[in-house]
């Protein structure tokens, strides 16, 4: 709205446009400054993975003077006999199962909270919200004992069981909020037309809740991909390690000698998360924003 004012160059208008232009300049300078700080580590890791190992810490240049591929070709050797693809496959499996589990179990639970009037609904809803604030530490040890007694240590079961049982209260909450916002007339009409709850859930509420489901799915994928403590506690065999544990193994076993490859793998590990973010950033940011509002 400011660009058109400049054509009217009467002396009276000038101070206002001048001030507006300075304000706009200050805004952009401020935003760019924050952007530089935010992006620096990301650009740094991009540049560092193309630097020779010895330059990574020592050189202050953000980008390499002469890019080398050695760090990436070094990844082909794997870590202590485990190929890099193994870590990525394991992470993909974990994240994939987590997404399936969260989408199914959270949407079913959310449907019950949002669309079915049953006795005890409010009490259960309060309990569900309560688990949002519960520090997970208190569950760490007893859950470990439970899964150990069941013989599931060193498998993905302890990592994904909770996802299939809707323990991710945040996503249940997100979907409840969304489903409550859907017009009531729709499921009432469905009911009058003889649809049962399963049918209403499957052919009306679920398709309409796509934005909330996409948000939950992407967040779940990213959380599982980044998860470090879960795999650290439950996975013992290097061939079952996820990317997070593979990176830690890199650091502990190869150390300084192969520093460049470790940084290159760090970069590769970030790629899926950043790609998902770029493709779905609207869903993620809107999902975050609505969860904080009501």
């Amino acid at each position: 709205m400011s660009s058109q004012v400049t054509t009217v160059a009467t002396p009276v208008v000038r101070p206002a446009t001048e001030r507006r232009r300075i304000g706009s300049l200050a805004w952009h300078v401020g935003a760019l400054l924050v952007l530089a700080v935010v992006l620096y580590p990301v650009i740094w890791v991009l540049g560092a993975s193309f630097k020779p190992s010895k330059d990574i810490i020592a050189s202050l240049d953000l980008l390499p003077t002469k890019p080398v591929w050695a760090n990436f070709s070094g990844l082909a050797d794997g870590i202590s006999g485990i190929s890099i693809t193994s870590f990525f496959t394991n992470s993909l499996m974990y994240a994939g199962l987590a997404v399936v589990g969260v989408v199914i179990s959270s949407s079913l639970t959310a449907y019950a909270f949002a669309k079915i009037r049953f006795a005890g609904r409010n009490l259960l809803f309060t309990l569900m919200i309560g688990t949002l604030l519960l520090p997970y530490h208190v569950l760490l040890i007893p859950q470990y004992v439970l899964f150990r007694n069941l013989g599931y240590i060193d498998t993905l079961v302890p990592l994904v069981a909770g996802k299939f049982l809707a323990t991710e209260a945040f996503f249940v909450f997100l979907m409840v909020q969304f489903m409550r916002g859907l017009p009531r007339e729709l499921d009432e009409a469905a009911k009058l037309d003889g649809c049962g709850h399963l049918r209403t859930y499957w052919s009306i509420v679920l398709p309409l809740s796509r934005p909330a489901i996409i948000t939950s799915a992407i967040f779940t994928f990213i959380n599982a991909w980044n998860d470090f403590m879960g795999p650290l506690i439950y996975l013992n065999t290097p061939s079952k390690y996820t990317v997070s544990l593979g990176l830690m193994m890199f650091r502990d076993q190869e150390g300084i000698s192969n520093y460049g490859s470790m940084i290159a793998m760090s970069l590769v590990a970030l790629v899926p998360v950043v790609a998902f973010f770029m493709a779905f950033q609207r869903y993620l940011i809107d999902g975050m924003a609505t969860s904080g509002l009501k």
Partner: protein
Amino acid sequence: MTLVKEAPVRPAGKRSAAPAPGRHGRRRENLAGYLFMSPWIAGFLLLTAGPMIASLYYAFTSYNLFTPPQWVGLDNFTTMFQDPRWQKSVEVTLKYVVVATPLKLLLALGVALLLAQKRRGQALYRAAFYMPSLIGASVSVGFVWRALFSDDAVVDRTQKVFGLDVGGWIGNPDYVLYALVALSIWQFGAPMVIFLAGLKQVPRELYEAAEVDGAGPFRRFWNITLPMISPVLFFNVLLESIHAFQVFGSAYVVSDTRCGPADATLVYTCYLYQKGFKEAQMGFASAMAWTLVIAVALVTAVLFWSQKKWVHYEEAAK
């Protein structure tokens, strides 16, 4: 949304509240509700409520996983309170929470106020600023942080240019915790997005009226913006401090796997992990976990109690 149009129009009022469920219908609704909820109920009983009770029991036992738990009364708690490393972990965690949370929220609010102005590129900035919140918890970023803050690396050398030599970060027990604080602040995007959503809901008329009354930008912020977004501020303070109490990955990855040097980043979770999973002292670790739960519950209670004094809820809204 086309579905809305196609939905048959019913005479309003008569049937809109759905057919009144008889006793039979109500029982069927209950059954449907609990069937849909069954995954959650199973999860709640097996993975939340059950484990909580078990862990409360373990807290009063000596338990190493290999022999059955032995009841020891309050022993775990008395040993814990006298344990210098436990005291250290409390100190480190409190320092982290008290320093990182306000700084992160302050930056988040500041940048949100900047981005609340409609200008070109605003959406792009918002997306870029949010990204660290998604990758910040990864081991990858932990390594990057470790590299950036190690001796003679970028941060260290840049600050030396300004004559600020703190003697390194990662290897320096006095400063390594602040490298973690910096990593937390870098992830200001998540609370920022929530602030932005709150700022969007402030009615413009309020500002226009204030401007007519001659209120400057600072007065407008203090008397309009801050009270209007106080529910969002409350939500952010609550969520961010609870998260900060639970920090683990960055302490484990950015410093060293023992959360050193000299226990300088021995956050509470890190000590709990060492006790439980490295030393197999499940009883002691459970006592630690319950102490944390009570501490977090107290903080939450104090926050909820204090909100009467500073959080402004719009009465008309509900």
